[in-house]
């Protein structure tokens, strides 16, 4: 039989709240511990208990981190979705399922291999504690699957040990359950399929698992954030929760119990960003994290921060919108909203992390940029990056000191003849500020969202207003070359892809597939707004650039059209994906090849 080694996807279909998370992670870690790269994706409902949930483990010898549409191995443990789960399996695939589920009619396929396992019966026979039973049932599936895929007991045992760490009893009980699965598969299931895991080397050395929200929390700690104000919202809550647990460990004086941090669970997102701005104004590094609905509430204060020039860091872990939308699904649909957040002429600095390392480093960058530019900085993560586990190199210890920007001390003021809070003294659009508490007679000024002149005095004069807006544009333009610059991979091809955020991972695989199809493409990964001048230069070097993003309205594409010089506008084309699950390579390859092969499509 043709064997498929280390390149397939396992889907575990269960009921939310049934305790499958630990067993899914054990399976993922076991495969990873054999040196095989994996990309886990949790597709879960907005629900505490009862709705269907799927956990996909992509086993990928090439190390692709994006989702794939192809489900090769299904573990069917949810009666409610059994029919559609069976249909989701690729021809040639495998279905391991609860033995009592019907295999007849629609659920009887002749192009897949079935392994019926009496999971419920095995759990009932072996575990008397009814509460524990549902968790252990899931660990039985791990044993069955491990035996079928050729993962040995020692590997599973190590993964269980890692999962439950010092809880020895839990380790033993879970291993018992896994062994029941191993034994059942050995005794009752003759291997009739092609899929197997084999140990690899050189692909996962030094890598570890982390989700983007945890990485961002590390970035906030290392970036010197001292004030956090937040309101819980999926999928951003775990960012602040991770920050809280890190702060409890690393920001508390072990002798006195005193904390080098203040964390407030606010009454809503209006208050959260208000606290962040108040703290930024008074000189602390401060952040909040939220998702789309929270970002909508933050609009008014965001405009204040932009116009009154107050540092703030706002993480938006994007979910599927508009409105409440799909709280547990992913999109990149807040890009244009965040960039222009608030009424009036407003444009912000927006960072676009794609990887776990990005989430960590851009969190630190965000605090430096907020202080340097005295403005709210938005970090646009998404659910896929924030909540899924990714294989990543270890986070690097920061070597740079904080950049606290242009802050005048009492000593500085003593040396100056005069100063003006909103004067463009350095001709880069960035003024100087003082902090409350600065002991000098000229330190104080009145911060306001109403019209003001260079001395921070209220003014309604047309010239003053226009001058202020123009200086803010100058400041924004200064940021173009200071924000994280695009990553370009270029080999002189006429066609290129431009993408940002987690779409990156699908682009990586898509470029390999396109090259195999005879259409190699160059690539620019955008890391921030405002647009770097590199973007227009890159587009100018290509005949056609496909802008790929995970939203319906081609938000970055639209922004590019507005900002690019006219003669470049016709070179860019849009590819979108917006069904709420992370983008896969075919969502890029298929429309791109269609367009390349039929020029008429491009012309439309």
């Amino acid at each position: 039989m043709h064997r498929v080694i280390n390149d397939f996807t396992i889907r575990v279909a269960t009921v939310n709240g049934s305790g499958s998370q630990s067993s899914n992670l054990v399976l993922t870690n076991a495969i990873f511990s054999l040196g095989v790269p994996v990309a886990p994706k949790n597709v879960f409902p907005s629900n505490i208990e009862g709705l269907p949930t799927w956990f996909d483990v992509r086993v990928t010898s090439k190390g692709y981190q994006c989702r794939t549409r192809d489900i090769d191995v299904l573990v069917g443990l949810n009666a409610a979705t059994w029919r559609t789960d069976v249909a989701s399996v690729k021809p040639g695939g495998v279905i391991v399922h609860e033995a009592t589920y019907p295999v007849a009619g629609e659920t009887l396929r002749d192009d897949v291999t079935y392994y019926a396992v009496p999971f419920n019966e095995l759990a009932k026979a072996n575990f008397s504690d009814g509460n524990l039973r549902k968790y252990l049932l899931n660990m039985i599936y791990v044993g069955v699957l491990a035996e079928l895929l050729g993962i040995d007991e020692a590997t599973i045992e190590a993964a269980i040990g890692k999962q439950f760490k010092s809880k020895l009893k839990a380790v033993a009980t879970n291993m018992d359950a896994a062994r029941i699965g191993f034994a059942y598969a050995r005794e009752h299931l003759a291997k009739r399929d092609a899929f197997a895991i084999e140990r690899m080397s050189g692909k996962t050395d030094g890598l570890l698992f982390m989700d983007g929200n945890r990485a961002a929390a590390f970035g906030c700690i290392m970036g010197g954030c001292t004030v956090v104000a937040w309101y819980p919202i999926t999928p951003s809550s775990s960012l602040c929760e991770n920050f809280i647990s890190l702060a409890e460990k690393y920001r508390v004086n072990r002798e006195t119990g005193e904390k080098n941090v203040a964390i407030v669970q606010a009454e809503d997102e209006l208050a959260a960003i208000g606290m962040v701005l108040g703290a930024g104004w008074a000189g602390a590094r401060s952040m909040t994290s939220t998702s789309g609905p929270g970002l909508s509430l933050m609009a008014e204060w965001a405009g204040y921060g932009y116009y009154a020039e107050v540092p703030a860091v706002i993480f938006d872990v994007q979910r599927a919108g508009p409105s409440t939308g799909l709280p547990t699904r992913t999109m990149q649909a807040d890009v244009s909203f965040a960039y222009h957040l608030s009424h009036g002429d407003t444009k912000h600095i927006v960072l676009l992390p794609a990887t776990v390392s990005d989430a960590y480093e851009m969190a630190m960058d965000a605090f430096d940029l907020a202080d340097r530019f005295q403005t709210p900085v938005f970090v646009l993560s998404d659910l896929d990056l924030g909540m899924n586990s990714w294989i990543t190199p270890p986070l690097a210890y920061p070597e740079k000191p904080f950049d606290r920007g242009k802050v005048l001390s009492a000593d500085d003021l003593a040396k100056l003849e005069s100063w003006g809070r909103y004067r463009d003294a350095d001709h880069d659009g960035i003024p100087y500020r003082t902090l409350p508490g600065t002991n000098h007679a000229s330190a104080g000024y009145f911060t306001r969202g109403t019209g003001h002149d260079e001395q921070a005095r209220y003014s309604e004069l047309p010239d003053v207003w226009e001058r202020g807006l123009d200086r803010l544009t100058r400041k924004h333009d200064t940021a173009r070359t200071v924000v994280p610059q695009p990553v370009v991979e270029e080999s002189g091809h006429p066609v290129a892809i431009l993408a940002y955020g987690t779409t990156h991972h699908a682009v990586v695989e898509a470029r390999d597939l396109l090259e195999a199809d005879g259409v190699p493409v160059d690539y620019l990964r955008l890391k921030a707004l405002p647009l770097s001048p590199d973007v227009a230069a890159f587009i100018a070097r290509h005949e056609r650039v496909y802008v790929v993003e995970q939203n319906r309205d081609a938000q970055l594409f639209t922004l590019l059209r507005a900002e690019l010089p006219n003669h470049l506008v016709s070179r860019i084309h849009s590819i979108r994906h917006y069904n709420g699950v992370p983008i896969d390579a075919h969502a890029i390859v298929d429309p791109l090849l269609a367009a390349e092969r039929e020029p008429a499509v491009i012309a439309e």
Partner: protein
Amino acid sequence: MTVNIIGLGRDIYKGLPTTLCAGCGHNSITNHLIKALYEYGVQPHMLAKMSGIGCSSKTPAYFVDQAHGFNGVHGRMPSAATGAKLANRELLVLGISGDGDTASIGLGQYAHMIRRNLDCIYMVENNGVYGLTKGQFSATADLGSTLKNGTVNEFAMIDVCGLAIELGATFVARSFSGDGKQLVPLIQAAIAHRGTAILDIISPCVTFNDHVGSTKSYAYVKEHELVANMPDFIRPREEITVDYEPGTVQTIELENGSHVLLRKVAADYDATSRIAALEAIHGARGKGEFLTGLLYVDADVPDLCAKERMTASPLKDLGEADLRISREDWAKLFG
């Protein structure tokens, strides 16, 4: 030149000329505030003047010109004040709001600031009407009171003092813009109090709410004020000399060792009883009266910074060595 206890003249405590209407109660409050800050000896550079939007919220420009001011967005001053205090707990945070800013658009933030006991002074310059948008009712307007054009308020009023007590406020006072004798010591006691100090100050709007039918006009307030107590503020280490009738003075020690002496006008009024305060507020309102004075105080509740066990140093001053995980611990995490 006459100076205060930190050697500063009164002029230092002044601000820009007011742009409010002539005769506005808010201007009187600003003058009383200047007196209170001057007499108390507040360091101008340690004062953070916070406000939202409205006539009242403009007033931070009219006192202590050297201090930093933060004129935020409508109804959201408490959150900005919270952030500022957390960033630098040494600041004296003074918030000035109005009845629209507090009781309508900002009611949520008002409530949550109080339940956190943020260490700040929160003054409501309360005239029952929206001035800047030319005379609409606010949520503190009394049921049955009228607008200048005769429109009658059909809705229940929000009593910001009663509400504050219900929410766990630790310092609640009410006064009148025209009564400096009562207001100045109340402001000074509020400065000394550690926690949220609510000062609801009835401040007639001469332009939109000073007519017959208004229950916040000068004439109405003068006729219907019911004084619970008259405070004296005694700074730390100052000798307390009492020359009032025994049993009519209540002495309350505040956080920094200062005292507020309440000369009780209503002899049985107890400013340390939440229930008594609520009964007195409701009882007065039932008779169409304003109860003024220090209505409720509890000096022993920890403020937000204390509850959060924050370090004594201002968070804004901490650097890389204080805030980053050590290389040693990092190696344990990622080594």
